[in-house]
């Protein structure tokens, strides 16, 4: 049981490390690496399109620059840093995980947890209310209504 827990913790830690740190080297052909890097960059002349997805001339030129830099032996990190040094962090479709940017990464999880908490609390509250009203129903019936019900049933049977 303890082993299982430890293994689970290691897997969890590995998952967090892999999630938090984009790989320094990208596998695949030069074209695949170019497209993967281009997918991380925002097309400067488009609305919400990556450099990989945009058919614009500027995006095409940017893909060519990435391709050439990879061919010259530059690492993906160096190429990312090059674009950030020219366009600013704005060029990255996913903000880097540091400083104020953490807000963008953590806020959805906080909202998800908060929303989940509200749902749990609401469900619990309604269950409690349901139990209370059930308990109220189990109380002995009001004799005024039972005698009237009996009388009306007898009337109807006649």
């Amino acid at each position, binding site marked *: 049981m303890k082993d299982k827990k430890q293994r689970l913790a290691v897997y969890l830690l590995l998952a967090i490390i892999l999630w938090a740190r984009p790989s320094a080297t990208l596998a695949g052909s030069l074209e695949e690496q170019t497209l993967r890097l281009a997918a991380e960059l925002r097309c400067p002349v488009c609305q919400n399109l990556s450099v990989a997805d945009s058919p614009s001339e*500027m995006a095409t*030129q940017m893909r060519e*620059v990435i391709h050439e830099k990879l061919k010259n032996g530059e690492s993906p990190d160096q190429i990312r840093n090059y674009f950030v040094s*020219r*366009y*600013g962090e704005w060029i990255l479709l996913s903000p880097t995980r540091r400083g104020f940017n953490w807000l963008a990464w953590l806020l959805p999880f906080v909202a998800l947890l908060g929303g989940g908490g509200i749902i749990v609390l609401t469900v619990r509250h309604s269950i409690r209310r349901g139990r209370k009203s059930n308990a109220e129903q189990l109380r002995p019936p009001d004799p005024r209504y039972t005698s009237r019900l009996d009388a009306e049933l007898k009337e109807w049977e006649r």
Partner: protein
Amino acid sequence: MATWKKLILLLSIIPLLLLLAYGFKTNPREVPSPLVGRQAPPFAFSMFDGTSHSLEQLRGKPVVLNFWASWCFPACYEEAPHLEAAWQTYRDRGVVFIGVDIQDRDTDGKAFVERFKLSFPNGPDPQGKVSIDYGVYGVPETFFIGRDGTIHYKHVGALDESVLKKKIEEML
């Protein structure tokens, strides 16, 4: 609803409203250039007239580097006469003007230069290397490079006489 519940609701809504207000106040098209205050990226390219120019050659002179395109209407058409006029005013004081025609056909670029009688060097950037190196994301954009090669100011959109005069005077 209990008072404390109302308070929690209010406290959770206020930061969201502030964030939204901040988002609405900022202009998504206004992206500050990280290059301002830094050394200008070196460039070397051929002009329409066949001459070559590089930033290295121009060290020690203030440079106005203008990115434009013939399809950029009306902004590039509005600023072109102001650029030519400023060039005529400041050329004797050592200011260099260079125009970079981006994402354009050579014939259209040359026709634009001819139309506005631009007498300062203008050349194409066929692979977009110069424009990407300067973090250009639209036209027109203009960089004012000081004598020491540092980018003094970046202007996005059409230039007018007053901006040109102010920024060039600051560099002189």
